[in-house]
């Protein structure tokens, strides 16, 4: 019975300060909600390197993410070498130029053939050929958009293809843990999906050790942001279907 007495009695929180682990209607954001709502992708970083211990702390958060069957189908690679980051950026830019040549019918010398490739590609890979990444390919190829935005540290997240159930979802969950932790610690992050193009180069497959069972899934740029990009914004509402009391209703 003596152990029970060791439970610390927390002092009541001050007026207006948001409490954790409790809810009342219309209360202020608690710290976790605040970090979730204020997180924005950072697309310009300071040159200052992030301390190693801080990156280790963020990676520690990833280790404790939920995964299907506790299979933890992830592997991390931290790249903090400026030259290597520039090389990766150059390679992805080259790949984007090649893709733009074959797929962007507005500028490609292939003309109508490029339009045909784009239409076929969109049917085979509707996610990769979504108009937004397609225009990003054009911007990266033209040098209007950076890949890593000058980040001093890049984390590559690998997915173990043998993971239980849905390894790509698990990789996403562990990445979100890292992103939220990084923002709560005063850093900025940005998901870089275009690192995927690195796996199409034999040189980079060897250099990064991309081979079975690992597959390069996502990249993440981490660093100190220029100015203050974090903040709450407006977003579209999503329709939610709600079934209760044997009736359907749609809420926004």
């Amino acid at each position, binding site marked *: 019975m003596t152990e029970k007495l060791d439970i610390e009695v927390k002092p009541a929180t001050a007026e207006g300060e948001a409490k954790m682990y409790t809810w009342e209607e219309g209360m202020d954001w608690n710290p976790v909600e605040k970090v979730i709502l204020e997180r924005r992708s950072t*697309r310009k970083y300071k040159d200052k390197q992030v301390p190693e211990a801080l990156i280790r702390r963020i990676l520690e958060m990833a280790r404790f993410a939920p995964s299907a069957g506790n299979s933890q189908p992830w592997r991390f690679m931290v790249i903090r070498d400026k030259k290597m980051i520039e090389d990766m950026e150059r390679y992805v830019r080259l790949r984007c130029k090649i893709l733009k040549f074959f797929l962007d019918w507005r500028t490609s010398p292939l003309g109508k053939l490029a339009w045909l490739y784009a239409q076929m590609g969109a049917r085979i890979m509707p996610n990769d050929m979504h*108009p937004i990444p397609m225009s990003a390919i054009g911007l990266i190829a033209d040098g209007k958009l950076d890949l890593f935005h000058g980040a001093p540290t890049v984390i590559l997240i690998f997915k173990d293809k043998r993971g239980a159930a849905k390894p790509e979802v698990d990789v996403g969950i562990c990445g979100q843990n890292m992103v939220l932790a990084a923002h709560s610690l005063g850093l900025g992050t940005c998901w870089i999906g275009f690192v995927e193009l690195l796996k199409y180069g034999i040189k980079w497959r060897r250099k990064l050790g991309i081979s079975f069972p690992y597959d390069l899934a996502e990249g993440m740029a981490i660093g100190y942001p220029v*100015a203050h*990009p974090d*903040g709450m*914004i407006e977003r579209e509402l*999503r329709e939610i279907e709600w079934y209760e009391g044997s009736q359907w209703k749609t809420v926004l």
Partner: protein
Amino acid sequence: MAYLTWKERLKIPTYDNPEYARSGRVVIDHGKCNGCGNCALICPGACLYVAGVGKNKKCYLMEGEFPDCMSCNDCAAMCERNAITVSQTYDFGYFYKILHRGELSPPRRF
């Protein structure tokens, strides 16, 4: 319950055609904007630019060719003077039509 008709499913929109594609749009309050250029620096679609000199240095949204604004609102979060608001979200026709989406709203406390 079909969310897309077969015609919509089979037709892939070409994003440069304004009939099928509507890009995002931001409104910049030039009374508040001081042309610091932070928004143009971070815009992932490279669709903001700064023009003008001295007091007339202001930020503008690209016009003419299809701007790549994806209404991500990062510029609005970056702007310290609250000069930017997103007025229109992006949408595409046919295959990439966006479903079940409502109006823009800031986070709501329930």
